[in-house]
């Protein structure tokens, strides 16, 4: 525990940073509201034009469930995916500030994990609590998200929190891996675009993985991305029973360990090619 204490300042610093950008966050939130509205109308059109009409179920999702999915995925992404790991690594390499970390008795990876946790905590407390409360309140209130038993809901919510933390850490390590590639190329912008696209497509943020074609769907289900957006949201929607919840959480956990090991290996190789500017 004592060894972890030295990362505390980085948790605090990124939490404070997050609040420094609150204006950006609010502007972004307004844009997001419009996006959600568009998606709702889009799905409305899809369901209305399907054979069974608005009450039909497409790939296991009814219209109501799809709306709940869209709203919760948006809130989830807003709270969970806000890390600048890739940009920070890129800047550290270009400006040579990476040296400042290499001469300190802390792990470079550890510093980013601490930052991810700090940002996540701050976002969860400041925006997460009101947004989830309002979102869930409305969705349950209008009957789009039926709650049969309160205890069942609370248990799923607890599992959802676990899955959220894992999603945040998975997102962090994937960003970090893409960031390390900046050691070899200066195409940070392209790397970031690639990362964002891959994550939003394969995590089910754009549309649920159930909509993908057969074999592809099976593969994507067992990839780390599913645990980064779709699975936590489906846990919260109580679409998974407890066994399935545990299964997807364990898959995420296994991927997290695997990716962290891979990141460690990648970093130890990349660090050998560091050339600090102005040597």
């Amino acid at each position, binding site marked *: 525990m004592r060894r972890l204490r030295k990362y505390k300042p980085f948790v605090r610093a990124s939490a404070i940073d997050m609040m420094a950008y609150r204006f950006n966050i609010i502007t972004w939130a307004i844009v997001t509201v419009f996006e959600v509205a568009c998606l709702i109308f889009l799905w409305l059109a899809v369901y209305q034009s399907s054979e069974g009409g608005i009450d039909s179920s497409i790939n296991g999702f009814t219209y109501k469930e799809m709306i709940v999915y869209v709203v919760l995925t948006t809130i989830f992404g807003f709270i969970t995916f806000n890390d600048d790991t890739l940009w920070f690594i890129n800047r550290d390499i270009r400006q040579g500030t990476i040296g400042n970390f290499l001469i300190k008795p802390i792990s470079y990876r550890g510093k980013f994990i601490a930052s991810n946790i700090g940002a996540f905590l701050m976002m969860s407390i400041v925006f997460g609590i009101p947004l989830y409360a309002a979102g869930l309140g409305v969705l349950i209130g209008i009957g789009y998200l039926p709650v049969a038993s309160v205890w069942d809901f609370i248990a799923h919510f607890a599992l959802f929190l676990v899955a959220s933390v894992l999603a945040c850490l998975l997102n962090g390590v994937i960003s970090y891996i893409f960031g390390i590639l900046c050691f070899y190329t200066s195409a940070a912008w392209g790397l970031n675009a690639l990362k964002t696209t891959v994550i939003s497509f394969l995590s089910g943020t754009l549309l649920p993985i159930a909509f993908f074609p057969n074999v592809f769907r099976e593969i994507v289900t067992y990839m780390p991305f599913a645990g980064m957006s779709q699975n936590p949201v489906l846990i919260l929607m109580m679409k998974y029973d407890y066994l399935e919840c545990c299964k997807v959480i364990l898959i995420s956990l296994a991927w997290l360990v695997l990716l962290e090991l891979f990141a460690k290996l990648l970093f130890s190789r990349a660090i050998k090619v560091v050339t*600090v500017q102005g040597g």
Partner: protein
Amino acid sequence: MIEVQELTKIFRKPVRGKGLIGMIATLFSRKYTEIRAVDGVSFNIPKGEIVGYIGSNGAGKSTTIKMMCGILTPTSGKVLIDGKEPYLKRRIVAKDIGVVFGQKTQLWWDIPLVESFKVLKEVYQVSDSDYEARIKFLSSVLGIDEFMSQPVRTLSLGQRMRADLAASMLHNPKILFLDEPTIGMDVLVKDKIRTAIHALNAKYHTTVVLTTHDMADIENLCSRLIMIEKGKIIYDGPLGDIKRRFGNIKTLTLTIPPNIDPNEVEPFSDDIIMSVDEDKVILGFDADKVNLEHVVQYAFSKYHAIDMKIADISIEDVVKKILSQQEEEHAKAKKI
């Protein structure tokens, strides 16, 4: 304490073609040029010594320092800090070293200095009592308490340097690497920094390795010099030896009126070497052999100097002299 064995660092730089076509060509084939920034350097530094690591720009000083503190990995050879290689055991060695790069700060730009110190206190796990005691000592030698609560970006260069030096000493490292700690400072700040380095060395027996371009830094601080040029060590020994070899060489630069032809002025003696650079006359002499007062009088009476400047020999001059001496020795050795 510090052992450096056959240390070599080769940088590979891609050769880029000229113009647009050349740029496209480099997309498909990459040629590299190799630059030997550090080339087979070896030395040992015992505990408590203050060593000046000097050389001209691009000689390989900073690259060596960066390998010694674990930022860069050597191409071959090794560095041992207390028996451990810093680039392999980064986090363990980091506790024993403090580093200051004169060109870059390690402090957090936007937060008050004292907050930066508190972050470092946690990062290095310094106990409360040690922290208090060290801050007290560092404030007294560096005078940092007057700007403790200011954000780092509002500090002047001299203040920031003192703050950086204090930051690097908070965890009481066994070794302090200072890369050009007095660059861009005025005389008063330079003096304060030198006094502080002495005080730290005396109180904690900190081993100090410093690179500098300022001859005065070396005279004030270092007992030993390691000189590097083009990645190779050209001198390693006590400061006194260098002085004995080159004497206490000073240059006197005179601005003379246009009506005086410097080549017609009668020479002072063989001990003074005169050279002309446009309207300037440069007199080089050994201040231990020739009386400075006599030279100045001579300059005014014979040259009618309008303005004058006295300077110590620069590091570049010393390097040049050592190199030319070595070449002479080589030439002699070949003849025999």
